[in-house]
């Protein structure tokens, strides 16, 4: 099978994830060797994924963890004071 550009585009994601079979991988690589357009699309997609996996790109809001663990600590304390801890007014401090 001779792959055209549109075919290659449709497999880019699976190609990056390494889930295309060996035969198809070979065909794609053969195409990439001589097609600058598809190579550039592959590179740009990979660059985006590198950027995505960079821990600085998608961050938690400032103070997120503190707020979460403070709220959780209250809940844990209430639970320690017994199953009815949530309902009895004196138990949750």
């Amino acid at each position, binding site marked *: 099978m001779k792959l055209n*550009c*549109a*075919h290659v*585009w*449709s497999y*880019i*994601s*699976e190609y*990056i994830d390494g*889930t295309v079979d060996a035969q198809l991988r070979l065909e794609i690589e053969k195409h990439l060797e*001589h*097609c*600058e*357009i598809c*190579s*550039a*699309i592959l*590179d*740009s*997609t990979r*660059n*985006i*994924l*590198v*950027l*995505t*996996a*960079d821990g*600085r*790109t*998608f*961050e*938690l*809001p400032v103070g*997120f*963890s503190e*707020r*979460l*663990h403070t*709220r*959780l*600590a209250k*809940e*844990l304390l209430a*639970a*320690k004071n017994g199953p009815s801890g949530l309902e009895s007014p004196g138990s949750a401090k």
Partner: protein
Amino acid sequence: MRQPDAGMTVQNGEKELIARILAGDTDLFHELIRPCERMVYLTVLAMLKDEAEAEDVTQEAMLKAFRALSSFHADSKFSTWLVAIALNEGRRRMRNAGRMPIETLDEQPSGETGDFTPAVLTDWREIPLEALERKEVRHALVEAVGQLPMIYRQVFTLRDIEEMDVRETAQALEISANVVKVRLHRARMLLQKRLAPLLKAATQPVRKRFFWSTK
């Protein structure tokens, strides 16, 4: 990048932690959820698109998970279970607010993945790697992910931001593995299409070299 063996070790450590929490050492719940915070938050944010609400839903989901911990069965990873709880909570919020989670909008019945045209920029590869270090480039990516249709944003968040595998992503989102793959491909291609020109503009004016073959 994640080693399969490392995954197993994490899962074993997780099991032990859960057993100790259930045995009464409840403060360990803080440690149990720490590695999952960003994953839960970003997944809920992908659904609700509101930071304050996503934070609140994340907190609620963590509390629910604590209360329901004894019903967690280790047939899935704790993080997958947690994300599923958070998504349920998110859906509940949307329903209560009269917002419908539009899960199937723009899902192409054909399942074909070749129905898009990527941004064709052969000079992308000439963008220096340092460009990826720039803050505005990261901002552009965050923006672009925010503009994806929700079903793609969710899959992209779990697979590519949080590096969850296909099976776990399918489990957390209650969709098939194949749908995960199709949505991920679309998400990546939509991002490529949107970001390639933006990134080009955000970096130096590269002299175009027309070296591609004529076809």
